[in-house]
């Protein structure tokens, strides 16, 4: 059976719902030995800032149960170097590029976005407002609806490209920040970023991560990510969503779609297996065919919940 894998997230049309997550796919070009970039729905590149950023001192990563912690510190070559040295080759290879951007201040965010301007080689801009535990920026933007709204509003007026806002899961009610972002002009929402975690080397009594805390990613966080996608879908039924968090198999992709995602981003799994993203595209097509799903977009938001009893759990 022929399966239509194409999906539309508002103005952003993707040939399939399998994208790769920022910070786990480099600038895309590192994966050319493993993945034909043109076969992917999209690739979100490492978070870009106005100036190059050296990131945090090591140790930056450690393993966790069914996942890992990281505190890279958003090391990147800067938006100008990206546009000059990486984007042309990505374009030549037919990659659908999402520019993930961040800044310490509203002005920096806006400046990065203006550098990209309306460059047609960039399919969409993804605002990372969800770097947890940041000394500046992050918490203020990511976990505070007012500040988030103000930031998104300014960025919105700085670009005509589809605007994705990537939300933090480290909040009491993700639908509140989601609404704030959308009301301020976000076209698409990405969720989730990493959960703030801490892991300790008990021999040295030091955090395993130099920054002390790190972002937890991988299969460990999938149930939380799927839940938040479902919550935001319920609160904002019309807003397209990238589901992110612990995706390793086509079944995981289907789970996110059923919960309410229109597409997904594969993150940490790219480290365990650099070929996984391309394989997920094939596996997803096979799964749909085997299950009589002609259009993958038909899966989105089809969760059948049972009536909720007036009971609590624990």
């Amino acid at each position, binding site marked *: 059976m022929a399966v239509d894998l194409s999906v539309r997230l508002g103005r952003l049309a993707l040939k399939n719902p399998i994208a790769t997550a920022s910070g786990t796919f480099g600038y895309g070009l590192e994966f050319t030995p493993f993945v034909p970039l043109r076969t992917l729905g999209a690739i979100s590149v490492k978070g870009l800032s106005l100036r190059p950023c050296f990131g945090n001192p090591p140790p930056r990563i450690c393993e*966790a149960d069914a996942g890992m912690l990281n505190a890279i510190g958003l090391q990147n070559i800067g938006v100008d170097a990206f546009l000059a040295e990486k984007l042309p080759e990505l374009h030549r290879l037919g990659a659908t590029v999402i520019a993930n951007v961040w800044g310490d201040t509203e002005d920096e965010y806006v400046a990065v976005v203006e550098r990209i301007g309306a460059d047609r080689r960039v399919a969409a801009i993804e605002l990372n407002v969800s770097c947890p535990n940041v000394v500046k920026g992050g918490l203020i933007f990511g976990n505070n609806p007012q500040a988030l709204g103000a930031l998104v509003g300014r960025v919105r007026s700085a670009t005509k490209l589809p605007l994705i806002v990537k939300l933090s899961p480290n909040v009491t009610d993700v639908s509140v920040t989601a609404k704030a972002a959308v009301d301020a002009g976000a076209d698409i929402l990405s969720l989730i970023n990493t959960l703030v975690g801490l892991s300790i080397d008990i021999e040295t009594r030091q955090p395993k991560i130099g920054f002390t805390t790190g972002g937890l990613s991988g299969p460990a966080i999938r149930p939380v990510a799927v839940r938040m996608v479902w919550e935001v879908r319920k609160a904002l039924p019309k807003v397209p969503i990238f589901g992110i968090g612990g995706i390793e198999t086509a079944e995981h992709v289907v789970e996110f779609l059923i919960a309410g995602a229109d597409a997904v981003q594969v993150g940490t799994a790219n480290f*365990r297996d650099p070929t996984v993203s391309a394989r997920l595209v094939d596996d997803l097509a096979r799964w749909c065919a085997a299950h009589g799903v002609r259009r993958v977009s038909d899966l989105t938001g089809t969760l059948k919940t049972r009536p909720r009893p007036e009971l609590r759990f624990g």
Partner: protein
Amino acid sequence: MPVNESLRVLRTVHYDPAHYSLFLSAGSIGPQTRPGQFAMLQAGEGFRPYLRRAFSVADVTKVAGVPALEFVVKAVGLGTGLLGRLSEGTPIPVLGPLGVPFPTDDLTREDRVALVAGGIGLAPLLLLSRELAARGVSADLFYGGRNETDVLKRADFERFLGPHRCRYATDDGSLGRKGLVTDLVTQALDGAVRWKRLFACGPLPMFRTLAAIVEKAALDASFALESEMACGFGVCLGCVAPTSDGRFATVCTEGPCVPPSAVDWSRV
């Protein structure tokens, strides 16, 4: 060009409870591998461990006629423990060869070099010894460990480099000289010997001392660094080391083999 392939366990040789050699079918990684490069191995099917583990290719050899990759491993935890218990024939996902190899292209039969190994740091120097021997480059090995059982693969080193070229040091004096391997190096440098280059792999303290030694002696050198790695090919940015020009460099792609002068040892 790194390859992601599934390689089978051909044999596991245990030297002592803490050390073993893991031989995998060479696949298409073997022929490509240069001394100093490494591979990322997935241990176990489950999520323990979750990430792949990095291991230097210690030798490209044969097991019962079958082309093989040899890894010399020290069991320190989850992954290294598991990899040592795999039964013959088990397939393992392997990504390699990865990283910058030891610089050897310019070496000729006239040259003499030094190899300095500390503990499990012998691994990359074994494949290097094979290559140097094949190309007729003479090399002095200085290899230190806590005790005699810590000093592995001596027969192979001595076969490649000649027994008289191999000197050992142990903390307890159970093999070779009692003391640090770096003392052997200083001693040799005080003598007449002049090396075109010094290659080293070992623990951080050894690197620190050696970095000072080679700087003082204005000796060209290449160190094979270690760091915690998630991806092994430059995308997670997790494995960085501080550089003397104030940046952070990814050990997996800008290294693991780097000139010690490129590293800011004060920030390591």
